């Protein structure tokens, strides 16, 4: 059986694509580079939208990327069930693309913040979190200036009611996110967006002092093999 193929998207200003590709490879999958200007998903089995400052975050984080040729291919594919993970700027792009509800706004403290953050896993019923245990506490790095999750009351109620809050900050909310939300999923559970960075927590030697990020990738690989 050939290895699962996970696309890693690079926009102008994407920064964590190398890390994302490494995390995919370490999990045993093939990392397929996807270029923002191509109308081509190269037949991948899943897509990782990594962090960065695509288009310099000009206008609004993710607002320009959302209209790129690649996204015009990705949006319908994701709606049809292709597993997609967006971290940080990738999460912002997913929200701008309306694949996930709500928006990410300026941190409450107004500062960019980089730290190792405790996070509680609230849902294991997504394509990217099945290998966690419900309620498990993990540590992942966060590093963002605009990570405060906001949504209207009805949306929040729906997210909470349908169990679509996937991650919540634990041990202190770093950015003022409503309901301490760190990550969410769509109704189908194939699209997950979160501000923390699993790709920076997959090796002992480098990155955060945890390897909790590995479970994202083992989760998706099991799912792809079983699909």
């Amino acid at each position, binding site marked *: 059986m050939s290895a699962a193929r996970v696309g890693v998207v690079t926009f*102008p*200003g994407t*920064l*964590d694509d*190398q*890390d994302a590709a*490494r995390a995919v490879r370490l999990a045993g999958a093939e990392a397929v580079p996807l270029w923002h200007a191509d109308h081509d998903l190269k037949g991948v089995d899943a897509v990782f939208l990594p962090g*960065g*400052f695509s*288009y*310099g*975050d*000009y206008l609004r984080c993710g607002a320009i990327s959302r209209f790129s040729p690649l996204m015009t291919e990705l949006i319908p594919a994701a709606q049809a069930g292709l597993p997609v993970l967006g971290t940080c700027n990738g999460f912002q792009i997913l929200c701008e693309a309306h694949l996930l509800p709500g928006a990410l706004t300026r941190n409450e403290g107004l*500062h*960019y*913040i*980089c*730290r190792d953050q405790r996070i509680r896993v609230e849902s294991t019923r997504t394509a990217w979190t099945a290998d966690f245990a419900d309620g498990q506490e993990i540590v992942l*790095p966060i*590093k963002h*200036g605009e990570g405060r999750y906001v949504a209207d009351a009805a949306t929040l109620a729906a997210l909470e009611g349908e169990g679509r809050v996937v991650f919540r900050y634990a041990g202190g909310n770093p950015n003022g996110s409503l309901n301490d939300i760190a990550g969410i999923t769509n109704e189908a559970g194939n699209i997950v967006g979160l501000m923390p*960075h699993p*790709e*920076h927590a997959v*090796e002992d*030697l*480098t*990155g*955060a002092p945890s390897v909790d990020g590995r479970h994202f990738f083992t989760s998706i690989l099991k799912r792809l093999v079983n699909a």
Partner: protein
Amino acid sequence: MTLDSVTRAQETPDERQPYVELGMKDDEYQRVRDILGRRPTSSELAIYSVMWSEHCSYKSSKVHLRQFGTKAPESEALLVGMGENAGVVDIGDGWAATFKIESHNHPSYVEPHQGAATGVGGIVRDIMSMGARPVAVMDALRFGGADQPDTRRVLPGVVEGISHYGNCLGLPNIGGEVVFDPCYIGNPLVNALCVGLLRKDQIKLATAPGPGNKVVLFGARTGADGIGGASVLASATFEDESQAKRPAVQVGDPFMEKLLIECCLELYQADVVVGIQDLGAAGVSCATTELAAKGTGGMEVNLNLVPLRDPTLRPEEILMSESQERMMAVVTPDDIPAFMAICDKWDVPATVIGEVTDTGRLVMTWDGEVIVDIPPGTAADEGPVYERPFHEPAGQAALNADGPERLPRPEDLRETLLTLLGSPNVGSKEWVTSQYDRYVRGNTVLAQPADAGMLRISEVMPGAQETTRGIALATDGNGRYAKLDPYTGAQLALAEAYRNVAVTGAKPLAVTNCLNFGSPEDPEVMWQFSEAVRGLADACRTLGVPVTGGNVSFYNQTGSTAINPTPVVGVLGVIDDVAQRVRSGFTAPGLRVLLLGETREEFGGSEWAHVVHGHLGGLPPQADLEAERGLAAVLTEAAARGLLEGSHDLSDGGLAVALAESCLAQGVGCTVTLPGEDAFAELFSESAARALVCVRPEAFDAFADLCARHEVPCSGLGLTGGSALTVEGVLDVPVEELREVHTSALPRVFG
């Protein structure tokens, strides 16, 4: 407006020119006339005035800086030395590292955010222009007193500027320093360091060989950034119209810089670059004269082709503009289509603006008329050189005589420790460093608050050899020590950075420096400078680490009051197996705590004298370089043999602060006994060449043998474990209390 062409210059030899306003002396202006055999055009005057400025020509420092070459130690590692955009060092397995530190002090005072941001941008382009992928940055920062109101304007702006620019670029920030002292209140120091990696066989140089090759300007368009000087020139030469609007501080666009990085790497990969130079200070003037001077010797440029952000710019302004995110490359005509295609892919504007010639002249045209016709080497390399007078400052002897011996010693050493630990200089810098991305690119092995930053080398460049190696970097500098004795102070700066690299297990290889001083026209400042350079050059020779490049920043003074002389030294080291890196502090309970090196009673310029007594006098600690060398040898060999579980350098605040920081690293306490009788001196003296390590009990004998072999004193202090820092019979502080005091130091001031 009249165009001041070469023809016109010949016709109007006596026209008065604003060279004084541009900072040129009478004899310098006369020299330009002698070189050209006529008066310069206004564009030529623009070029010479910026190229012969202190900043670009090093005219006051050159005669001293030569010692870095003449006293340089033998080093097989040095691939490219001083004089290029940055030095390059062989780090083994076919890999090379290039690194450099540079100041952006004055702009950061005027406009902290943009000043600091463009400081990062500038040093990153220096590294790119060597053919390398920039892989990390770090910053050595100095601010006025933490409680002084202007510090609350400058520091948050500087940190935000570095944070915004560096984070957007995707470069991990892996270390540096933040130091407060009232002497920097009107003159903050922002020294930015960047390190890059490249294949040893792919070094690029700033050179323009091959007549017929094309000169390509690429990156951002040219605007009116940083051309205060040129507007003086324009207003005196032409009609006085709206010259006051020019911004003096450059504005950065990190997004464009990120595109430039990826674009350049792809250009290098495609092998379509003959020579390359970044545009920094003096912009197009500097890039064209330096490229031409180091190449075949000639170049023709049509300035009308320079893409402009502001279409009203005059040629003099284009020549002096310091717009950011621009590069200049020399490309063969055959490679131009491939070059342009790569720039297009990355949305980087690129324009052919000229051609290499073999005429030995740099010729520029505007609207078809020749406005510049000079031998480029006269601007780039043959600037004025000054032997500025210097003498020991009038108060130096009195300063040295006013030693710390007269200061009352503390009764309560616990309280002294907590006072130091909570002071702005010793307290946690997390308020600053948490605004920097230290993880991006996934190769960060150690970052602040570790003694040195460390990166593994992997996946950085296609086609490169697999390697287990890593690089380590540290910067240090203590202005108080240098004020008391600039010779020793500079040596101590090197010694500390060298030691900080060694405690991570890496072997120190090479040096970069940023020399921050007051006005070179003040003989007392010039004495500090000459002493510091002499001390640093001597120390580099003794430690066997060559200076690969650096930067001098003069005129850091307000009125006649200069900053403390502040040589900041960066050391790069290499570790053969990055997995053998030694983490900072106490990493587990049950380890033996050992103090390496000799402790003397040395409080001159110490953190204790500064924080508790506001005193600066006497002499700094001795710089015992042979001892530093032995200590580093022990640390690197012990790391390679897996004997060390943790380590930490002793510096500001001495053993007491080192113990506290070691406990804080992983939340592991310790119980130790001081070997001598004088607890205060043992805990707070700042003797150099010392480190704290922890080893497994079963590794102790082997480690002690190693110390003996290198004649490094090794004292067993006690054991790690528990939840408190306990110095038997002296003090006992819970780690949580240490943490509370340490972490609240900066938030207490900056919110």
